[in-house]
């Protein structure tokens, strides 16, 4: 399903909503990265934005929702602020385990095939916040310029 409800509230704010599955996430991410406010940012900042958003959106798809249902959707709002890009991600999936964000310690195994995502998110963001209300997860963070 293609992303819908794209609403450039102003040139400083972008809101998108799309289905919680890997291909829709990839498509939504491509739209975000091609949006006017983001296309001109410097390559390093763009790399951090694409990486953090990919990790966050993949986590929602894989863990909050698990096996994707037809109505599973992710909402994302991006706002340009002096410190960088402020992001709010909302989903209606399961809450975080123990209601807390993972620490993001790097995996210690010889061949770690997972466990990198939260390390990348925590390394590349500031002001990470998580709240659960109205049956939804609300994740907020800033990706510094």
């Amino acid at each position, binding site marked *: 399903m293609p992303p819908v409800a794209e609403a450039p509230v102003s040139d400083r704010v972008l809101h998108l909503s799309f289905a919680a599955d890997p291909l829709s996430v990839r498509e939504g991410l491509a739209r975000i990265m091609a949006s006017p406010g983001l296309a001109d940012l410097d390559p390093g900042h763009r*790399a951090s934005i694409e*990486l953090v958003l*990919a990790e966050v959106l993949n986590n929602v798809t894989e863990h909050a929702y698990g096996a994707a249902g037809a109505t599973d959707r992710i909402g994302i709002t991006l706002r340009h602020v002096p410190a960088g890009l402020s992001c709010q991600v909302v989903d209606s999936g399961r809450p975080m385990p123990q209601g807390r964000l993972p620490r993001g310690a790097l995996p210690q195994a010889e061949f770690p095939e997972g466990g*990198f995502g939260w390390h*990348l998110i925590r390394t590349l963001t500031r002001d990470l916040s998580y709240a659960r209300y109205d049956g939804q997860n609300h994740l907020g963070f800033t990706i510094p310029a």
Partner: protein
Amino acid sequence: MHMQTQTRPKVLSVLVLEDRIDAASAIQFKERMRDLTQAATSRVVLDLGRVQFLDSSGLGAIVAVRKLLAPDRVLELCALTPTVEKVFRLTRMDTIFTIHPTHAAAVAHASGG
């Protein structure tokens, strides 16, 4: 998932002809690599020069291929683009893998070793 292989004595090169290895393609990547490296005897060089984006799922798949080839065969990487290099550096996987700047350097190193 488009990939291209090149066989030399003692080294099999795999060039990834996709611009991303992400959550939507990580499993396919791993399966293609499993098939393509079946005949590999010692070194496998994965050329990531065309890959502009790698997320943690893609990274996990590359680590899985390394595990798949071990202990008799080794997976080396070359030609990392800036975003891909950043992922390896931030996760410290750059200390686990041998990473060559170019494919030519990887082949020279492999044939000398």
